[in-house]
């Protein structure tokens, strides 16, 4: 399942997409420890698989929360680098 967390506002579109089918096979859940803003959490989804999600209380502030990692136009963010399966995508 492609789970899209985030929002669109006047300044742009800010979504993080997680391919949870890949999470179901993942053993290290490296995304969780990699993110300085603590955005990732591991949950048991409705199909009883352990998958990553973006914490609910942070979903509507992604632009601000990710700004440190993305400063200066950087594209090698800790979360995408940590996820060996390539399950994480950002829309901006």
């Amino acid at each position, binding site marked *: 399942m*492609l789970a899209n967390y985030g929002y669109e506002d006047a300044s742009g579109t800010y979504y993080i997409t997680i391919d949870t089918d890949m999470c179901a096979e993942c053993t290290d859940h490296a995304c969780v420890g990699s993110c300085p803003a603590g955005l990732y959490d591991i949950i048991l989804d409705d199909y009883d698989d352990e998958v990553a999600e973006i914490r609910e209380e942070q979903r509507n502030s992604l632009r601000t929360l990710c700004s440190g990692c993305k400063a200066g136009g950087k594209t090698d963010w800790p979360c995408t680098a940590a996820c060996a399966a390539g399950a994480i995508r950002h829309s901006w």
Partner: protein
Amino acid sequence: MNEERKEYWRWAESRWTNPEISDWQGRTITAGVDIGSTSTQAVILVDGELFAYSNMRTGSDSPESANHAMAWALEGTGMTLDDLQYTIGTGYGRVNVPFADKCITEITCHARGANRIYGPSVRTILDMGGQDCKAIHCDERGRVTSFMMNDKCAAGTGRGMEAIANLLGVDIGEIGDRSFQVEEEPKPVSSMCVVFAKAEVAALMRSGWSKEMVLAAYCRAMAIRVCKLLTRNKMEPDFAITGGIAKNKGVVKRIEEIMGVTALEPQGYDTQIAGALGAAIIAIDMLKKKRARGG
């Protein structure tokens, strides 16, 4: 002086019992309760067939709303809470269903419910609820393959539409029809934010706009907003709308026009029960698993 104010946003609560099912004893009875921010539904299935449901406004206390909705669905059926063999809670208040065996997200339940209401061909689902709006893509079994939601602001939600109904003094059930009573479609309102809507609506009315023009502009703005969400997630022609706003033709027709599709017909079902219906269907699988484990 005590002045009674008319609340234009109030939609009619409802309940239904299937007249064709009287012999429910000894059969599989499952239930789903969907506690949304503005409405709560309770659905009861007998051997997977719709037996009864209720659809009411959510009160300030979620457990009480769940109890009321289920009590109303059970009313006059002879069935009691003890007869429910497996119940799933869903929706924003899902953890607050006191008699639920399990909680499941509304995204999973809406997809499963839409699969029943609109048939297995449905792939793209737009759930326009009271507080948020979700675009869901599912497979032929009603299993979610992707979703995207917008809950950052009330615009594009039932709450936003209720605010406009109240501001204009138009009954919520009339918005759709009245939004088409315009000679030509006005441009969509620029600000969809309900916080600014009051000022914007007042300014439009002062500049000579009729209520119908404001409604048309607001419905179009809402449609444009949700269409972006649909396109970004995954839009397929077998498309359905669940939730309360599915009943607002003013928004539905404009979504169809923008996307170039015709929304599937709900085959006699109330679109607002999609989440609770999906929960009650998933409860059948859960009950089987529980029994297989010897529970």
